């Protein structure tokens, strides 16, 4: 399945911070067919470093989408039955307006003059996209990690527009530990002299800082088990230690490789803005309780967590479920067994697919 990326432009977007941004481009892809009644649309929401290319093969890069194992004909999100939409988030660097975009007022990239954004802003922009497509109600909003945050935000901000929400390996707010890892990433970028207070476009980007940030990120996405299985203490192309600081261990080689690869596809300032949006996200912000925050929600929920995910541990998903249960909302929850840590929702999808398939089928039937 070869897919094409589309872009739509909106004149302006009002942000949670009070400022306005415009014009705003949104890059998105779609898979499957919207039915005549427009009742089979699913919005897939990407995680921190994802993009609009969720499924199929990109003609540009030749690469499969980030959830290609979940979205497609006969897959968990079955494109023979459903119409799946995925857009790049606000602040991103893969087609949607972000800090690397040109500020029409100056003719230069926004860089650090880009306004600080929130998950709420991302979702507000997605709603404009869905409106522009003439879809009255989404059958489901779904995503893992930051995608799950957006799904939760959709459910409480636009309750009448969402039949079901499927937040996976996610949370209603970052813990100190999650903020801490993000801060390490941001500091790695900002400590790189090439960052230059964000003004590096057309010059040498802060590749070393961004690579270190990505290395830290990758550690948090895996588990002790999966790293032991994948790397152990194996040496990289040598029989003995080099007694130096070149790559000795496989895991060092892997992290360096992933770090350097990331630099080619991701903008350092987007890293700063999007991680900050995740850290600010708190569904119960200025609310007496999480249960109160869920008061407007009308949708069904399927909440999934993974046993080895220590970055977004199951207790955070269980907090969502407990709050929803206290409101007597329709919520299903399961912790899936997996060794792949936070990455499980992207790589260990067999059971997840079955859950999603059944949940969507019954949701679709009830909604007709």
């Amino acid at each position, binding site marked *: 399945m070869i897919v094409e990326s589309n872009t739509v432009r909106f004149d302006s977007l009002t942000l949670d911070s009070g400022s306005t941004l415009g014009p705003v481009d949104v890059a998105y892809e779609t898979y499957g067919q919207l039915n005549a009644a427009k009742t089979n649309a699913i919005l897939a929401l990407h995680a921190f470093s994802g993009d609009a290319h969720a499924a199929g093969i990109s003609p540009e890069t030749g690469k499969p989408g980030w959830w290609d194992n979940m979205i497609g004909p006969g897959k968990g999100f079955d494109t023979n039955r459903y119409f799946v939409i995925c857009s790049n988030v606000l602040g991103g660097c893969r087609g949607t307006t972000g800090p690397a975009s040109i500020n029409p007022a100056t003719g230069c990239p926004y860089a650090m003059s880009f306004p600080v954004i929130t998950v709420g802003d991302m979702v507000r922009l997605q709603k404009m996209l869905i409106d522009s497509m003439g879809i009255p109600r989404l059958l489901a909003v779904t995503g893992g990690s930051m995608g799950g945050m957006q799904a939760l935000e959709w459910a409480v901000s636009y309750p009448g527009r969402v039949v079901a929400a499927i937040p996976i390996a996610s949370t209603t707010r970052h813990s100190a530990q999650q903020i801490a890892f993000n801060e390490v990433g941001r500091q790695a970028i900002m400590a790189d002299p090439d960052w230059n207070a964000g003004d590096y476009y057309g010059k040498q980007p802060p590749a070393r800082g961004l690579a270190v940030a990505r290395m830290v990120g990758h550690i948090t996405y895996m588990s002790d088990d999966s790293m032991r299985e994948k790397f152990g203490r194996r040496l990289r192309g040598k029989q003995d230690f080099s007694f130096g600081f070149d790559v000795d261990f496989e895991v060092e080689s892997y992290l360096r490789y992933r770090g350097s690869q990331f630099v080619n596809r991701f903008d350092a300032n987007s890293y700063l803005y999007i991680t900050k949006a995740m850290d600010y996200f708190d569904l119960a912000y200025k609310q007496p309780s999480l249960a109160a925050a869920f008061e407007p929600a009308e949708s*069904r929920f*399927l909440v999934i967590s993974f046993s080895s995910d220590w970055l977004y541990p199951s207790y955070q998903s269980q907090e969502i*479920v*407990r709050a929803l*249960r*206290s*409101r*007597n909302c*329709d*919520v*299903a*929850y*399961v*912790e*899936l*067994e997996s060794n792949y840590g936070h990455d499980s929702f992207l790589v260990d999808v067999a*059971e997840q697919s*079955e*859950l999603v*398939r*059944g*949940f969507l*089928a*019954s*949701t679709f*039937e*009830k909604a007709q």
Partner: protein
Amino acid sequence: MTAPTVPSPAFVRDLLGRRDYAIISEIVTPGARVLDLGCGDGELLEWLAAHKDVKGRGVEKSGARVQRAIARGVSVFQGDIDGGLADYPDRAFDYVILSQTLQETVYPRAVLREMLRVGTRAIVAFPNFGHWRMRLSMLTSGRAPRTALFPYQWYESPNIHILTVLDFEELAALEGLTIERRYFLAGHRKVTLMANLLAEVAVFLVAR
């Protein structure tokens, strides 16, 4: 959605292979809000949703079973029944079902209280340890009884709080509960006399 129909108990029995389900499906009124504790694969809730248009929710400890239940479209929460109901508001359900699970809970009395806090009525089905086969097995073998209903070795059994019909009625009285209906089953037959001796499975409908 299938229109609610009066279920035929024989059909339920044959469909689900569980005698107590037939009784439960008789009790539950159409359109009711139902919570099924220890709901397994969610087969009862699925059936009740399809045939009696109930709004069903389930709680199940086994992750594999929760997966199968969700995959069949039933809203099930993976969790423990002991203490797992605390999040639900009072009277959130018309019926709270505990089918063949009371004897597996750590705090059966607390579970019963919680059931009647979150639900208006509780339906409790359990294997009757007072059945004559159990008594005979114990008397003749001198060992922890093993029968078709209690097939486990004592060291492998999930049944940690075995009880009889009389035991349950006594607890209900102690808790000040009203027993609105009671059904006793042996095989596919209903038992009317000497239930504590002849019933293999008891089903109680209780309210506070």
